[in-house]
């Protein structure tokens, strides 16, 4: 069964400045939806609004059922924020146990973690830490996952592995991704939105990304 996540009728303003005004974004299970936009356009705000973390006028629906506080339902939606969110003192063993994930499967994909099981997450490098955070969110049971800058701090080999992981995992959930490494995002996305001037634009070609002023192709 295909599940849908839709967000629209969103209006966000800070100090009279309109950040988001004409938003329509839809995400389906089995698909990756990419969201691009220049700094300050409101990508992270949009994710926080969908997650229920940022209050404003909105309509966020899962299978046409309105959810104002999706963060209360991790079986529906998980969220990877753009910063480190796992308590620094927790060991990898504990983190994987909390998320009910098999550490050995993780090591099969990322052998460099074989001897790090008992390490606390603060002992890892920035890239390794991001990889663990990304993995637990992507692999945990949920209908949807939103990933805010998942490729940050990752080296090119890790980026390639993460791309494959996301493509693999999209069979199990719908993914909404935003990142400035737009070629990676565009390369794996089934649908690609560009957020510009407070509006979402569903793009059909790479040329449109340029037209909307996000990047030079």
């Amino acid at each position: 069964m295909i599940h849908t996540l839709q967000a629209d009728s969103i209006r966000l303003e800070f100090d009279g400045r309109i950040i988001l005004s004409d938003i329509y974004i839809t995400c389906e299970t089995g698909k990756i939806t990419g969201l691009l936009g220049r700094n300050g356009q409101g990508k992270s705000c949009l994710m926080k609004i969908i997650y229920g973390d940022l209050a404003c006028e909105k309509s966020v629906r899962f299978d046409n059922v309105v959810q104002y506080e999706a963060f209360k339902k991790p079986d529906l939606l998980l969220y990877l924020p753009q910063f480190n969110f796992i308590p620094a003192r927790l060991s990898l063993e504990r983190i994987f146990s909390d998320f009910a994930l098999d550490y050995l499967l993780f090591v099969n994909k990322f052998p460099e973690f074989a001897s790090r099981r008992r390490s606390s997450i603060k002992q890892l490098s920035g890239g390794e830490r991001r990889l663990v955070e990304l993995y637990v969110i992507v692999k945990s049971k949920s209908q949807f996952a939103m990933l805010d800058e998942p490729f940050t701090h990752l080296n090119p080999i890790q980026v390639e592995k993460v791309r494959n992981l996301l493509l693999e995992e999209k069979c199990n959930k719908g993914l909404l991704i935003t990142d400035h490494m737009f070629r990676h995002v565009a390369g794996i996305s089934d649908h690609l939105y560009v957020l510009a001037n407070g509006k979402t634009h569903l793009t059909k070609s790479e040329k449109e990304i340029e037209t909307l002023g996000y990047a030079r192709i």
Partner: protein
Amino acid sequence: MRILKTIKLIWTFYQNFLLYSMLITISCLVPFYNYGFKIFTVIFWFKIITLGISYYFVNEYKQREYYYYRNLGVSKYLLWTSTLTFDFSLFIFLIIQTYQFK
């Protein structure tokens, strides 16, 4: 199983201010032992205010960690109501024990 997991997560969160809070509680018990209920109002409000300070600092410096608990189904509200209730109940329990011991 789910309840045990939730308790484990709440305990992890509580460790953010457990040591500080225990020190405050002990520092309240010592004058209570010496002066009894004459000083109870002062230590009661002292404990309440320091719990408020804990709330402020954890919220300020550990707010990113809320996403960890949320992604595991434990809300900020549950984290705070359970830890503050436990902490204050422990404080009252120890006050009663000190009074009886005296």
